[in-house]
């Protein structure tokens, strides 16, 4: 818990909005650099002892995620459609607790590859999309990838994939023990001439920096880790930030606006405290790390005479280019028991199809992993493409739980200008803050690469000896937990929101760093890149602050 408590009205060097993957890194780096840092988190502070193996609570009752009951969203597929509140769920989902979504993610921890940063130069324009190069290269980000892997703790086997991008250090921990799904995917993949390799995971395989090794309980995806083995910000960056004595994490505090002065500089943040009382916190600079949905929402809700279209939105693209990640998976049944509910979700990955290949006739690439990503209840409700609705056939399928696995594709989503997070003109949340409206329709190439990857996954499972294979339906996405691209990074202020150091083009003391900064979607698993960007941005923000250039 925070030992530092800033006094009411006390000016701080930095307010960081959001305590998740990026916010945690930002808080640690800036506070360790000697600055005073106040982190705001919408949700409560929980610890390992507060988490449970409770599927209903976390998957259906929004135990740690944004709830449609108090924080509703609307969805439409394009601007011609009426935006409606989906039943019982929000389109854009994230964990609303200290540590954010780094608590409940699967912990797949893939680096981007060098090609991700300059696909537009390689492939040119794609009709209907705004494919662009990043303003930075893989080589510039590599030191920060390495820093993440060692600072938060990642297990893996460097160089085990022929497609592994260049790296300056190996992983700090060996891979976690392989599961039967990994063995089978490796078997099938190698038969087909592919190159399965041990999955890099933000999960400890041995005692690391005072945290225990994973105990293989199996409740990773969608759950907070009960033994502190998942390398979430809650267990890594946040405690180290607080240990400096210069960082306070103010939980259950909802930032709804950013204050600006007549010079066009931010002055602090407006927020609701835990009692829903409006407050203002002064800051010399603000870093918004609220995720790819909440960050544009906060900017668009921070209108003023000087920024009538929302803060840092002179380009008009705040909230636009929303990207998820498509997929394309198969369920497979084998002769013997796999017991996939035991241990981490993923132990083998295939990146042979990572690059976009013009010979396929469409843009896109992806990775494939082996898993069963859900607990028994969620699996039983969604165990494959033609899951019987009811009766003996359903019962028989359910009885195959321990012999089942998923071969899951994770693929690209193109940046489409009309896909966006905007502000709903009518809907407000439980605090009276205008709610977000999601507009999303997959680019046709997104669906094609998902189908392509599903075909590869089916081939792998067939080669592995699956008794039966079921395909999941490939359809247009109506939501995601990967919230990307809505305040994209770039050199041109008319076509991007933040510069190459995550400073907004419009406001010198306002920075944005989270999934919103990503220019392209990668192939799923964006968290490592988000944290690497945050380490890099924090380094440059700190240097700029020392030079009095903020």
């Amino acid at each position: 818990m925070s030992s530092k408590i800033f006094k009411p009205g006390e000016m701080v060097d930095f307010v960081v909005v959001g305590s998740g993957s990026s916010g945690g890194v930002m808080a640690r780096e800036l506070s360790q650099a000697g600055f005073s840092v106040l982190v705001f988190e919408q949700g409560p502070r929980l610890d390992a002892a507060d988490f449970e193996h409770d599927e209903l609570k976390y998957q259906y009752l929004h135990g740690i995620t944004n709830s449609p009951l108090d924080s509703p969203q609307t969805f439409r597929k394009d601007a011609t459609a009426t935006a409606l509140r989906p039943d019982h769920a929000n389109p854009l989902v994230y964990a609303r607790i200290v540590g954010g979504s780094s608590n409940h993610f699967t912990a797949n921890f893939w680096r981007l590859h060098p090609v991700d940063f300059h696909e537009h130069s390689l492939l040119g324009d794609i009709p209907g999309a705004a494919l662009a190069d990043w303003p930075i290269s893989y080589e510039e980000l590599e030191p920060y990838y390495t820093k993440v892997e060692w600072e938060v703790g990642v297990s893996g086997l460097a160089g085990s994939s022929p497609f592994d991008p260049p790296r300056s250090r190996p992983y700090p921990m060996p891979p976690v023990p392989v599961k039967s799904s990994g063995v089978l995917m490796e078997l099938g993949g190698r038969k087909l001439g592919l190159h399965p390799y041990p999955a890099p995971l933000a999960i400890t395989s041995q005692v690391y920096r005072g945290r225990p090794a994973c105990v293989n309980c199996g409740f990773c995806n969608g759950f907070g880790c009960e033994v502190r083995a998942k390398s979430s910000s809650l267990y890594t960056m946040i405690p180290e930030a607080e240990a400096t004595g210069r960082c306070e994490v103010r939980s259950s505090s909802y930032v709804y606006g950013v204050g600006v002065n007549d010079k066009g500089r931010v002055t602090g943040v407006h927020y609701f405290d835990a009692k829903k009382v409006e407050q203002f916190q002064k800051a010399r600079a603000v870093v918004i790390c609220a995720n790819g949905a909440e960050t544009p929402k906060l900017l668009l809700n921070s209108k003023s005479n000087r920024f009538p279209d929302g803060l840092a939105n002179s380009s008009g693209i705040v909230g636009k280019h929303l990207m998820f990640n498509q997929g394309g998976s198969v369920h497979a049944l084998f002769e013997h028991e796999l017991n996939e509910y035991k241990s981490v979700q993923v132990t083998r990955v295939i990146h042979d199809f990572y690059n976009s290949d013009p010979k396929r006739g469409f843009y896109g690439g992806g990775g494939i992993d082996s898993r069963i990503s859900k607990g028994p209840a969620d699996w039983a409700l969604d165990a494959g493409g033609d899951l019987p609705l009811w009766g003996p056939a359903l019962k028989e399928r359910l009885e195959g739980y321990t012999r089942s696995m998923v071969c899951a594709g994770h693929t690209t989503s193109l940046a489409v200008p009309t896909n966006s997070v905007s502000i709903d003109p009518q809907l407000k949340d439980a605090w009276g803050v205008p709610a977000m409206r999601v507009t999303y329709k997959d680019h046709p190439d997104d669906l094609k690469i998902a189908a392509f990857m599903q075909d590869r996954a089916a081939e792998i499972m067939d080669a592995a000896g699956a008794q039966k294979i079921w395909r999941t339906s490939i359809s247009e996405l109506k939501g995601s937990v990967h919230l990307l691209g809505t305040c994209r990074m770039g050199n041109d202020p008319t076509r991007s929101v933040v510069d190459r150091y995550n400073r907004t083009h419009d406001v010198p003391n306002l920075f944005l760093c989270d999934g919103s900064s990503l220019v392209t979607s990668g192939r799923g698993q964006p968290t490592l890149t988000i944290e690497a960007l945050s380490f890099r941005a924090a380094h440059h923000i700190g240097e700029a602050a020392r030079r009095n250039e903020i």
Partner: protein
Amino acid sequence: MASPSTTRREFLLGGSSGLTAAWLGANWPVIARAAQHAHHTAATTPGKFVFLSPTQAADIEALTVQIVPDGKTPGARAANSVYFIDQAMATFFSWRGAEFRAGLAQFQSGFSDAHPQAAVFAMADAQTQAAWLHSVETTPFFGTVRQLTILGMFADPKYGGNAGGEGWKSIGFEDQHVFVPPFGYYDAHYQGFVPYPGSPAAGAKQS
């Protein structure tokens, strides 16, 4: 090596003989705090229905039994899915209650209109029930009951279903908090990761 027979509660309380003190010390510094947090997973003894009337409960239970019947292992009846549904509508899914009641009323009246001789779904024979379900299986109400039946089999027993962990047992899910490899048949027979020729990892044999 077999997994230690460790329930979550046993693990949290540090009472498993399969785990050494050194292991526990290294693996879980917060075990003392977590022990206090341990929730029960014991079977919930069904009481009387709160949301459903006895007639409604009978129809809903008959529906759950059709949706997940007994097979090689017990189905929704043994797991008390109907009690889960009752608890759900009375408490954590109460905001869906009005829609549920309306759907159930329509389901019941539709059945009795079509089967005046049977009148009540729960009293009809299994073939009649199944035939009727085929005609309504695309309705939102059926979808809701299907979802709740399955949740009632596999959600934590503290919510009223999954009695004694019967749902979990029926699919082979072990309610334990710690497992050690091998986890399944195939990883038990795995020979280790062999790096690809020429790769930087060549020479390293890993699990």
